[in-house]
């Protein structure tokens, strides 16, 4: 579904990603983990069209999308929930969701989707007319995910869904992600913490210093310390 090959992204002279290969198949939940500054956010931002790659290819459903404008890419079925959630604080919950729905042409189905999503995140129904800036961090994360879902993406990318959230709230967020993945939504999730990754992931990439140093199925990684070793750099480049 998403095929990234030899992707290189630079900020001026600084190379954030170097010849990175990442693949996401339909129905998967692929996780990219790595320490601060590994290039995880850069990866998602580049796929979503916020950054221009310096080299390499990004294909989504067989078509090249590298360098496309974000407002066009989201119409093709890509959605990104960026780090820090970026809900519109001065808008109401309803208006936030409306902005998410505006690219849809199928008006009737949108209403059904909205009902379904409010079922998945009941707190948003309670706060529907309230200003989004008054939501708690966890509620904002739910709103950001709900807003992205209303675009009915085929690939949902989430940058650090657990960042800054209380453990109980992370459980909730992960439970809803799991539910969504079970209904067939493909996920590409970036996390700094490896703690919960294996609960949800089908495959995991470990990114360090802009390079993939390990990639394997979640099953294979569950039975050893390979992920931690790659994450902290003990495994070095040999596993890449």
């Amino acid at each position, binding site marked *: 579904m998403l095929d990234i090959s030899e992707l290189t992204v630079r900020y001026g002279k600084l190379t954030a990603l170097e010849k990175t290969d990442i693949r996401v198949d339909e129905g998967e939940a692929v996780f990219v983990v790595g320490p601060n500054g590994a290039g995880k956010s850069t990866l998602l931002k580049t796929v979503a069209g*916020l950054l221009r790659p310096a080299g390499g290819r990004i294909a989504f459903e067989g078509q090249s999308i590298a360098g496309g404008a974000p407002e066009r890419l989201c119409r093709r079925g890509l959605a990104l929930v*960026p780090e820090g959630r970026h809900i519109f604080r001065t808008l109401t919950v309803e*208006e936030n969701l409306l*902005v998410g729905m*505006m690219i849809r042409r199928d008006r009737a189905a949108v209403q059904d989707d909205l009902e379904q999503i409010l079922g998945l995140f009941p707190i948003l129904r309670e706060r529907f007319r309230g200003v989004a800036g008054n939501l*708690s961090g966890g509620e904002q994360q739910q709103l950001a995910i709900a807003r992205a879902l209303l675009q009915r993406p085929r690939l949902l990318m989430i940058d650090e869904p657990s960042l800054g959230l209380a453990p109980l709230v992370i459980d909730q967020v992960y439970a809803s992600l799991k539910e969504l993945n079970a209904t067939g939504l493909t996920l590409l999730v970036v996390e700094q913490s490896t703690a919960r990754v294996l609960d949800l992931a089908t495959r995991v990439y470990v990114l360090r210093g802009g390079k993939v140093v390990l990639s394997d199925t979640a099953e294979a990684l569950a039975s050893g310390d390979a992920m931690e070793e790659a994450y902290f750099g003990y495994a070095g480049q040999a596993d890449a």
Partner: protein
Amino acid sequence: MRNFMQVMVDAVALGSLLALVALAIGLVFGVMRLINFAQGDYITIGAYALVVPTASLTPALFIGALPVPLMVAGVLMVVVLLALATERVAFRPLRNSDPATLLISSFAVSYFLQHLVMLLHTGRPKSVGIGQALTTPIEILGLRVPGIQVVTMAVTAALLIALVLFLKRTPMGIQMRAAAENFQMARLLGVPANRVIAVAFVISGLLGGTVSLLLIVQTGTLDIRMGLMPVIFAFFATVIGGMGSLAGAALGGFLVGVASVLLQSYLPEGLRPFRDAFVFGLVIVILLVRPKGLIVIGAARERV
């Protein structure tokens, strides 16, 4: 007391006018972090469009010769097209530049437009008589109020309500508010960047054209710098109102206008020539007390 009421009417009328200019600046700033000083030249050119370009000091009317509805539509159209053209040519290519670059670009556009007017109309002030019927005072509750002040307040109120309805109730309005708060996120959700910015410029053009007409009826004078002071005052208004907050911009406009008229009326005779220094001093005091402006964008706090 009657005198005070009379002064208040003046104050509110000027405040309304500045609120319109401040809204135009605030709206464009919201969607592209551009402080558009050329807004003043939109106002100037809207006013000059009323007359035929000649060197004469009492020029023949051009758009100003049309029946009132057509004249209003004509001026608004000229200013809207001008605003769109400057956006397309000067500001769109710099969209991703930092605010300082955009600001300098707006100065360049402003000087260019000012000299364009000078080239076509010469630099000397001209007199033009339009809507003189509106300058005769009418009696309201024992106060003698020039008709144009009533019109200014009514038009401002109507435009404010229309703008609020547009921003709250229409899909484009909601997208514009979203884009004003977080442009990148709005684009990620499919908000069309170019269209939202173009619409913001169209509205700034409509507001600019309205101010052209109100100013020219009030003063009867064309001057290539006629838009400058309103824009500087309106810029301060948006700053004390809280950059990025439209309600703040409108409120700031009112306050600056009201303060300026009150100072003009009640400062000791000898200090009146320094009125603007007092107004700007007031701006500094407000900013010292509330550095983020009067209206800090609601709930702009980090939540965990």
